C-alpha cells in the first residue's frame, strides 16, 4: 500500500501499458477474453483516480502527489509528475471515459487484440500530458498519443479513413514543430525543462542565456514562442480556422475512437493553453487576448453553422465540438485579458468546466451516433426519420444527451457556458455578444439532428425484415448511464467539481 500511495500517479499512468502487455500474450482468437481483460484493466486507473480525487487536498497550493525521477540527465530533464485542480479533473475525465469507450468497443470484431492494446496505449499517452510537470515529458506524451489514434482511425475506420488519419497525423505534427522548437529554446536558455521552475523564471526573464536571439529583442522572441505554442494547441482544440481535420477524423474514426477523440484528445489542446500558454506567457496572452477571442468566436459561430449544414449525423456532432470548444477558448481569452480579477476567475472556471462537460456530452453523442450507425449502416440524416416509436429508450437517451449538448439549463453544459459568458461579458463584450449567434444555432443543429432521426413520419424501411431497427442494448445503456448521471448531477449541483476547479483557478490565474 505504501508503494501505491507514494507512486499513485505513475501507477495510474502506466497501468494501461502494463495491461496492454498482458493482453499481448493472450490468445488472439479469444476476443471475448481480450475485451473483458481490457475493460476490467481500464477500471483500475479509474478506481485509482477516484482515490486520487478523494485524497486530493483542494485547499493546498501547488502540485500534489508529485513524483520525480531521473530521466534524461544530460538535458536536465526529469520525469516529473504532479496534479493540481485542473489536471485532476482532466485525469478523472480520461480514466472515466476510457472504460466507457472500451465497453462501447465490444462490437469490434476485427483485429481485436491490436485494437484494445492501442486503446490502452492511448490512455497512457493522454494521462501523461495531464500529469507532466516537465516540458519535455509533456511533449513526449503529446506526440505519443497521436500514434495509437492514427492506427485506430486508419485500421478500424470507415471508407475514407486513409485520408482522415493522414490529415489528423500530419496536421497535428505540423503544429507541434513550432512547439518543439520553442520548448528547446526554453530548455537551452534555462538549463531545465521543469515547469515549476520555468513558471518562475521565463515570464520575467529579461535576457536569455545560451540562446542567440539573432538581433531580435527578448519581447519579439517571446511573442514568436507564444504563437508557436498557441498554434500547436489551437490545432488540437481545434480552433477555427485549424478545425477541418476534425470532422474528417471524427467521421472516419470508429465509434469509441470518436468518443475519446472528442472527449479527451481535444482537451489536450485546451489544457495546453491552461497549463503552459497562460502561465508562461501572461503578458503576450494579455496582449493578444483579443486575437484569441476572435478565433474563439469564429469557432463558436462557424462551428455551429458548419454543424447545421451537415447531412451526415456524425459530421454534425463533430462540428458541434468546434462550437463547444470555442467557449473554452473564449473563457481562456477573457481570463488572459484581465488575469487576477473575479471576471477572470469566473471565465476560467467556466472554461475548465466546459472542458469536462463537453467530454461527457460529446462522448455520449458520438456513442449514440455509433449505436444507430451499427444498426443501420448509414449516417445520412435523410435516411432516418420517425424512428422514435421503434426505439423509445434510445430516443429518450438521445434527446437527453442532445439537450446537454445544447446547453439546456439544469444540465451540465449550461453552467459552464453561463460562467464563460458571464466572465467574458465584462472583458470582451463585443465578442461575447457575437458568440450568441453561435449559441442560437447550437439549438438549430441539435434540433435538426433530433428532427431527422427521431421525429417526423416513420421511415417504413426500418420497420420490418432484415432492416428492422432494434432497441439499444443493455450494454449500450450502461455506457450511457454514467455519462447521463454526471450530466444531470453537474447541472443540478456543480459545486463538487467546480470547487476543485475554482480553488486551482484562483491560485493560478
Amino acid at each position: 500500500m505504501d508503494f501505491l500511495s507514494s507512486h499513485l500517479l505513475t501507477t495510474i499512468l502506466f497501468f494501461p501499458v502494463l495491461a496492454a502487455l498482458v493482453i499481448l500474450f493472450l490468445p488472439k482468437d479469444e476476443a471475448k477474453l481480450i475485451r473483458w481483460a481490457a475493460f476490467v484493466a481500464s477500471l483500475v486507473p479509474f478506481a485509482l483516480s477516484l482515490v486520487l480525487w478523494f485524497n486530493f487536498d483542494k485547499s493546498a497550493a501547488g502540485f500534489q502527489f508529485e513524483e520525480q525521477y531521473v530521466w534524461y540527465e544530460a538535458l536536465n530533464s526529469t520525469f516529473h509528475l504532479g496534479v493540481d485542480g485542473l489536471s485532476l479533473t482532466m485525469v478523472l475525465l480520461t480514466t472515466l471515459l476510457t472504460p466507457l469507450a472500451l465497453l462501447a468497443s465490444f462490437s469490434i470484431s476485427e483485429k481485436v487484440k491490436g485494437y484494445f492494446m492501442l486503446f490502452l496505449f492511448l490512455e497512457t499517452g493522454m494521462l501523461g500530458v495531464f500529469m507532466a510537470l516537465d516540458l519535455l515529458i509533456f511533449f513526449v506524451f503529446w506526440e505519443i498519443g497521436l500514434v495509437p489514434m492514427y492506427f485506430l482511425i486508419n485500421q478500424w475506420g470507415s471508407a475514407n479513413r486513409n485520408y482522415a488519419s493522414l490529415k489528423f497525423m500530419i496536421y497535428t505534427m505540423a503544429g507541434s514543430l513550432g512547439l518543439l522548437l520553442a520548448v528547446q529554446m526554453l530548455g537551452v536558455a534555462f538549463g531545465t525543462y521543469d515547469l515549476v521552475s520555468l513558471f518562475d523564471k521565463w515570464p520575467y526573464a529579461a535576457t536569455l542565456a545560451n540562446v542567440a536571439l539573432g538581433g531580435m529583442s527578448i519581447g519579439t522572441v517571446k511573442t514568436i514562442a507564444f504563437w508557436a505554442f498557441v498554434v500547436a494547441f489551437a490545432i488540437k482544440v481545434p480552433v477555427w480556422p485549424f478545425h477541418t481535420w476534425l470532422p474528417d477524423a471524427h467521421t472516419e474514426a470508429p465509434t469509441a475512437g470518436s468518443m475519446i477523440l472528442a472527449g479527451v484528445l481535444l482537451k489536450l489542446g485546451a489544457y495546453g493553453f491552461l497549463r503552459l500558454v497562460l502561465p508562461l506567457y501572461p503578458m503576450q496572452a494579455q496582449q493578444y487576448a483579443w486575437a484569441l477571442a476572435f478565433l474563439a468566436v469564429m469557432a463558436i459561430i462557424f462551428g455551429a453553422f458548419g454543424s447545421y449544414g451537415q447531412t451526415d449525423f456524425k459530421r454534425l456532432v463533430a462540428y458541434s465540438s468546434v462550437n463547444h470548444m470555442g467557449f473554452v477558448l473564449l473563457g481562456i481569452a477573457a481570463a488572459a485579458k484581465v488575469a487576477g480579477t473575479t471576471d477572470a476567475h469566473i471565465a476560467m472556471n467556466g472554461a475548465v468546466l466546459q472542458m469536462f462537460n463537453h467530454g461527457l456530452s460529446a462522448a455520449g453523442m458520438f456513442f449514440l451516433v455509433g449505436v444507430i450507425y451499427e444498426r443501420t449502416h448509414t449516417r445520412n440524416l435523410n435516411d432516418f426519420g420517425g424512428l422514435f416509436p421503434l426505439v423509445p429508450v434510445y430516443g429518450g437517451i438521445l434527446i437527453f444527451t442532445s439537450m446537454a449538448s445544447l446547453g439546456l439549463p439544469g444540465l451540465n453544459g449550461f453552467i459552464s457556458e453561463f460562467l464563460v459568458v458571464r466572465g467574458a461579458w465584462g472583458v470582451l463584450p463585443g465578442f461575447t455578444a457575437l458568440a450568441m449567434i453561435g449559441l442560437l444555432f447550437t439549438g438549430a443543429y441539435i434540433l435538426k439532428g433530433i428532427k431527422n432521426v427521431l421525429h417526423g413520419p416513420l421511415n417504413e424501411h426500418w420497420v420490418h425484415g432484415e432492416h428492422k431497427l432494434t432497441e439499444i442494448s443493455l450494454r449500450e445503456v450502461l455506457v450511457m448511464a454514467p455519462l447521463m448521471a454526471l450530466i444531470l448531477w453537474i447541472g443540478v449541483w456543480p459545486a463538487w467539481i467546480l470547487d476543485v476547479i475554482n480553488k486551482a483557478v484562483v491560485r493560478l490565474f
Partner: protein
Amino acid sequence: MTTELLIWLIPLPPALAFFLIVLFTNKSKALSHTIAVGAAFLSWLGSMVVFFRAVGEEHFTAFASSIPWLPTGDTWFRIGVSIDPLGAAVLFFVAWTVLMIFLYSVGYHNFGQPKGDHDRAGLPPHGATVTDEHGHKHTVLSVEPMYSRFFAFIGLFAFGMYTLVVSDNLLTMFVGWEIMGLCSYLLIGFWYGKPSARAAAIKAFMTTRIGDVFMLLGIAFLYKATGTLTFSEIFTEETLHVLANTPAFFGLSAAGAIAILLFIGTVGKSAQWPLHVWLPDAMEGPTPVSAMIHAATMVSAGVYAVLRMFPLLTADFTGHGLTTAMSVVAFIGAFTALFSATIAVAQNDIKRVLAYSTISQLGFMIAALGIGAYIAAAFHLITHAFFKALLFLGSGSVIHGMEHGVLHTGNHHVDPQDMFNMGGLRKKMPITFWTFLIGGFALSGFPILTAGFWSKDEILADAFAHGHWAVFITLAVAAFLTAFYTMRQITLTFLGEPRTKEAEHAHETPWTMTTPLVILAVFAIGYGWVGIPEHFPVLGGILPNWFHEFVGGTLLEHPEAVEFSWIPLGTSLLVALGGLGLGWLVYRNVKSPAEDRLQIPALKNKWYFDEAYDFLFVKPAYWFAETFTYKWMDKGVIDGILHFFGKAAAWIGDTLRNYIDSILINDWIADKLSHQWTIHPAARAVRRVQTGRIQQYMLASIGVLFVVGVLVYYFFMA
C-alpha cells in the same frame, strides 16, 4: 414545517413524477396519471399553504432562504427561494391552473377508452371499433398511445414553472424558464409523427431561443454590473441608483440596457411582435398543452419576468415622460395587442382564434408595464390566466365533442377544429357552453360581472390617467376587436343550428374534463372582485381593493391608485358591449366562410410574417450553413489551402526525386560521375593491388605499420 422549507419543496413533486414515470411506471397508464395528478396536487397544496400564510401575515414582505451553489473566485453564488406578495399571487394562479390542466388531461387523452385499431405512437389516436351486446359495431374514441409520456412531460413543465416562480434569483429563474422551453418543444411536437407538429415544435424552440440568448446577455450584464443576481440584493435603492446612472450603449443607462436585454427574452417567451410567430403554430400540440403554454405557464412566465424586473425597467424613470426602455416596452406591447387582434378576427380554427387572443392580451400586460402600471399588469396576468385556461380547456372540450361526432359519421374529412363545421353546440354540450361563455365574456371585458373587465379597465384607466394617449387608444381599439372576435367565436361555435352532421352528433365530455371548466369559471368571475378600485361608482369600497394593497407591497414604494375618471370606464363599457353586440349581429346568420366578409387574405395569412421570415432568415441561414460555411469556407478555402500544402509538398518531393535524385544524383553523380568517371577508373586502379599474393600483402602491411609508427612517434611522443 417552516414556510421556507415548504417553498423549497413546492417544485419537487412534479419533477419527481417526471422521473418516476419515465424510468419506472411508463407501462402503466393508471399509475402514471395517478403519480402526475398526485404530484400536481401536492404542489397545489403546498402553494395554497404558502399563499394563505403570506396573506395572513400583516405587512408581508417575503419568505426567503438561500444556499451557496456556485463557487466564483473568492465568493459563492447563492441560489434560493423567495415568495413575496407578487410571487404569492402568481403561485396561487399557477397552482390552480396546473392542477386543473392535469386533471383535464386524463379525460382529454381518453383514459379508460379502448386501444385504437391503427394507433401508433407519435400520431393522434384515430379511434377504436367496439362491438356492443347487440353485435353492432361502433367507432369510439381511443386512448392516447403515449399516455404516460404526456403526463411525464407536463410534470416537467409544471416543475419548470414552479421553479421560476419560487426562485429568488435570475439564474434559477432562467433555469425554470428554459426547462419550460424544452417542455413546450416536447409537447408541441408531442405528435411528432406529423410533419406540421415537428416543424411547430422546432419553430417554438428556436424563436424563443432568440429571445433567450439576449436574456442570457442581460443576465451576464446584470451580474457583472451588480455582482449578484438575487432580486432582493438588486432591487435596493443604492444599486438601482448606481445602475440608473451608469451609461451603457445606445444612450441607455445600464439599468435600461439590462432591462431591454431581459425584455427581449420576454418578447420571445410571451410571443410579442416580432417574435410572435411560434405561438399560433403551437396549437399543433394536444389542447391541455395549449392551455398550459397559453395560460398557466410559459407565456405568463414572460410577463412575470418583466414584473420581476420592473424596478430595473423604471430605475431611471422620474415620473415625467417614459424612459427609452419603457417606451420600447410600451410600444411593443400596444402594437402587439392591436396587431394580433386583427389576425384573430379572420381565423376559423377555434384554437387559433384563442392563440391570437393570447398574444393580444399579453400585449395589454406588456403595454401596461411599459407605462408603469405595475398592479394593473399583474392583475390582468392573473385574471387572464384563469379565463384563458378556461377557454382553451373549453375549446378542447368542443373539439373532443366534435371528434365524437366525426367518429360517429365516419367522415374524416370534417375538421373538428373548424368553427364553420360547428354551430348549435350549446344544446349538445351545455356545461362546456356556459363555462366557455363565461370565459369568453371575461376575455371581452363584459362589465362588472367578469374578472377580465376589472383588470382590463384598470390598464385603460392607468393609461388615461397618466396621459399615454397613444397607448390608450390602441388598447381601446384592440379591446373592441377582442370583444368582436370572441363573440364571433361563440356565435359560430355554440349558437344557431348545427351546420354539419358531426356537430349534430357532438357529445358532452366526461367529468374529468368538465370539472376543471366549472372551477376555472368560478375564478374567471370571482377573481375580479379582489381588485375593485376604491373609488369605483357604487361598487367601490364595498370590497377592499385587496389586490392593490397586497401586490403593491412587492415594490419598494407602494404604487398609488389612479384617480377615477368616467372616460376610460365609458370607453371600456363601449368597446366591450359594442364588440360583443356587433359580433353577434354580424355572425348570427353566417353559414360558411364564403359569407364571412372578414376573410381578408392579409389577415388570414397573418400579415405574411411567416413567409417574410422564411425568406429573410430561415432560407439565408440554410444557405449560410450549407453553402457558405461548409462548401465554400471549410471545404473550399481552408481545406483548399491545406490540400495545396499537401500537393506542394508532394510536388517538391516528386521534383526532388525526378530531377535531383533520379537525374542529378542517380544518373549523373552516381552513374556517370562516380561509376564512369571516378569510381570505375579508381576501382580499376585499385584492383591491381589485389593480386592475391601473400608476399605483397605482407610487404604492404609492414609499410603501413612503419608509417603509423613514425606518425605516432612524431605527434604523441616527441
